């Protein structure tokens, strides 16, 4: 539901990702559609294996074989980027779309000074001399809150703590001023005590630079505090997407309810919903109809036969047969 007044920064339309293995094809992402506006923070949540990382990897064109985009399109500022040749996409990575991964301890090459890695990245994308890049790199390290940055610039990654290394990684992701950052669980590997600092830093930097963020996380607290909108993924599909208050406080999709541990607005299945029983199906055993139906307390016949697709419900979009085309909740759902 992008507003017609301005073009979304990123648009993902009906994205399909499949793994082509010896035992046939596995559908890992199925009809994933969403957009991110300039400067916006989109939170992405969902159980492990839901397809969050694959979505991020597809956007920056770093799906690893045998994974492949087999359908849909990805547009950056209205231009398709999913079918670009490798070299053109490379120039977009880091320059237009930055990425931050889970583990700061292993994201940096241990054999190169932190400064070398920053200068290298800057000079890959921007026409700068060694000195200019160095100056900018030191400023960046200051900006991400590394004390005595000029001196630390020439240190090796192993001389930094985990939290400091993730700050360096953030500096690296930001150093060519990308318009979008894909942050895939940027704090999961960190000490709990520094997670909040890193998220606050990321949020501040992106606000200051006007950078949009796709923030993948398992932490609902972080989502509530940081995201503008939230996408909930389940078994390779988007179950619900909408403004953060709506998704967190007034979740429409039964799966979102369970994730948020929220009390449902209506219905008799209160106890079952507070905790989702069972596990998300593996890719080779996704049930027909709604993938969530074996675990869903509200499931009815239609759920086992037809795949629900995203339909607008107020300001959100929800893929659940409990809602009809007008966005109203069906009362006679329990068939």
């Amino acid at each position, binding site marked *: 539901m992008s507003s017609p007044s301005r073009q979304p920064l990123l648009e993902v339309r009906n994205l399909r990702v499949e793994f082509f293995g010896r035992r046939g094809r596995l559908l890992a992402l199925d009809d994933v559609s969403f957009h991110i506006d300039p400067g916006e923070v989109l939170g992405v949540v969902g159980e492990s294996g839901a397809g969050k990382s694959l979505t991020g990897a597809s956007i920056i064109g770093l799906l690893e074989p045998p994974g492949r985009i087999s359908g849909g399109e990805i547009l950056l500022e209205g231009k398709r980027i999913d079918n670009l040749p490798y070299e053109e996409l*490379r120039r977009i990575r880091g320059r237009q779309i930055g990425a931050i991964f889970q583990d700061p301890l292993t994201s940096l090459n241990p054999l190169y000074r932190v400064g070398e890695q920053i200068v290298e990245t800057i000079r*890959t994308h921007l026409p700068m001399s060694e000195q200019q890049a160095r100056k900018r790199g030191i400023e960046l390290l200051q900006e991400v809150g590394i004390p005595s940055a000029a001196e630390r610039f020439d240190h090796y990654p192993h001389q930094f703590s985990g939290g400091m290394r993730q700050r360096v990684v953030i500096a690296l992701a930001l150093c060519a001023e990308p318009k979008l950052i894909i942050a895939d669980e940027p704090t999961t590997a960190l000490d709990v005590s520094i997670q909040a600092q890193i998220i606050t830093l990321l949020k501040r930097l992106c606000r200051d630079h006007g950078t949009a963020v796709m923030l993948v996380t398992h932490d609902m607290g972080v989502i509530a505090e940081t995201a503008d909108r939230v996408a909930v993924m389940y078994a390779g599909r988007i179950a619900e997407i909408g403004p953060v208050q709506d998704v967190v406080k007034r979740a429409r999709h039964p799966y979102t309810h369970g994730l948020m541990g929220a009390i449902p607005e209506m219905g008799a299945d209160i106890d079952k919903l507070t905790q989702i029983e069972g596990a998300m199906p593996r890719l080779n055993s996704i049930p027909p109809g709604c993938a969530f139906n074996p675990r869903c307390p509200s499931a009815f016949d239609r759920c086992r036969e037809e795949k629900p697709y995203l339909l607008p419900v107020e300001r959100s979009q929800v893929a659940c047969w409990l809602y009809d085309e007008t966005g109203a909740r069906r009362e006679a759902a329990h068939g």
Partner: protein
Amino acid sequence: MIAFILRRLAQAVLVMLTVAFIAFAMFNFVGDPINNMVGQDTSLQDREALRQSLGLNDPLVLRFGRFVANAAQGEFGVSFRLAEPVSRLILNALPATMELAIVAALLAVIFGVMLGVYTGLYPNRWLSRFFLTISLIGVSLPTFLIGILLILVFAVLLGLLPSFGRGEVVRIGWWSTGFLTWSGIKALILPSITLGLFQMTLIMRLVRSEMLEVMRTDYIKFARARGLTNRAINFGHALKNTLVPVITITGLQLGAIIAFAIITETVFQWPGMGLLFIQSVQFADIPVMAAYLILVAVIFVVINLIVDLLYFAVDPRLRIDGGRSGH
């Protein structure tokens, strides 16, 4: 780091003393050195006098000390077989072996690393599979067989290259080199391929598996996400990270090349230390054997020291761990 080097030096000295003792033991306990020097008709008194004058009746420790002191000055006595000072024999043979070993090692490292990088980066290409199959053959065929096959094809059947000897050599001071004449260079080709092939396949397989491993790491993924060029990723980030194990193995292999040269030199009648050693074994020429043993040990020890120092140059994590900060 200084402490580390000192420790390594101490170890090196220990190793050298052990080897020296073995060489010394060969001298003293394998056969009777006097027997080797004098004729059948020398009287027992004369033998005893000679024994006394040579200091062979001195206590063992004293004799060993003298042996080490002499060895340290390159003094190993006189060859039983050729009646020439061992040091001169070794010096004459040394250039041939060193030139052969260096060319073989260069071939092994250059082609080993290149093929390793290629097969590691593109594991599924047809050419990679071809190189791997060939390398399997290289690993499993014995050196002498490879040498004989090469001689058969290039010397006997095609008549392109000589099958034995060093060709024409040019003397520069005491060093004789085959690099400066066409026939010298031609003579080097087959032996150096024979000698280097095994190490080349070894290095290639090592670089390949390291490369495959490194390409899966997070920092390579992150380097891609930063939009670095393939060249920077493959040859900057990935290759450098494969270097530590490659340096170790290559260093050790260099020692092995010099040791294995015995076989290659025999096959190609290459007038180096290996050939000298084999001929000495046939004649139980203990002084030459002892000198060879010690020289090879010195080469091994020096190479190991250099390898250790290279670690520090390549991997900053081994250097003094300063400046690790808290959160």
